């Protein structure tokens, strides 16, 4: 358990522009947003890539469960940083694309949006909480 707000980091053999395109065009989003467990119909993706604009998509899980996801762009700095909020959950996601040799290092940070949690200190706090949990579980105090 690394226990901070970091969700994912990946080195990709592609230019920043290509990764940016994947994140900001309907075809790109449809190609990967569902991950391994859902598909995103390309026609369902709408993108209005500017601060205050939305992107939205449908997901279809193999079991038939479908849902529409909606996100609102907070800031757009092509091809390096994209910040968007998910209004239903209040989650803020920051996608950072950094050139790294002949590829990029892509980082996706997610954090919850309640104002009191929008601080670096709160992120550190989450780390310390999860460390506390880890310590507790290792000591087996509850098991």
């Amino acid at each position, binding site marked *: 358990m690394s*226990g901070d707000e970091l969700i994912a980091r990946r080195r990709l053999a592609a230019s920043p522009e290509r*990764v940016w395109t994947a994140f900001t065009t309907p075809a790109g989003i449809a190609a990967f947003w569902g*991950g*391994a*467990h859902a598909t995103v119909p390309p026609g369902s993706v709408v993108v209005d890539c500017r601060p205050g604009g939305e992107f939205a998509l449908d997901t279809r899980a193999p079991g038939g469960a479908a849902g529409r996801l909606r996100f609102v762009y907070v800031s757009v700095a092509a091809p390096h940083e994209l910040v968007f909020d998910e209004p239903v*959950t209040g989650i803020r996601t920051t996608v950072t694309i950094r050139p790294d040799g002949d590829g990029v290092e*892509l980082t996706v940070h997610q954090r919850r949006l*309640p104002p009191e949690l929008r601080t670096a200190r709160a992120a550190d*706090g989450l780390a310390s909480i*999860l460390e506390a949990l880890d310590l507790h579980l290792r000591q087996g105090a509850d098991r």
Partner: protein
Amino acid sequence: MTTSLAPPEPDLDAAFAALADPVRRALVSRLARGEATVKQLAEPFALTQQAISHHVGVLRRCGLVEQRRDGTSRPCRLRAERLELLSTWIDDQRRAWGDRLDALERHLGDDGTAR
């Protein structure tokens, strides 16, 4: 496993909000090492026992801490299973993005071959 950003359980909101406070996080860290009374919890802080009681109350109301009666003292105990709910939620988010980035990598690979 969630592939979408499933809303967290509503009752997690109170727990996340409670943990936004550094004193309460320190209390949770202390309680992870074992039970403690409010008096014991107050020792490392430049805070009154009343202030610590207030923070313990917030942690109790969101279910992260429980207090039992032991004669005249009321030791506080961490409810680790509640913390686990928070970490499970975070882990689900992390897994969803791991999956998604696998798919992105395949997409970029396909794209490169096609050119």
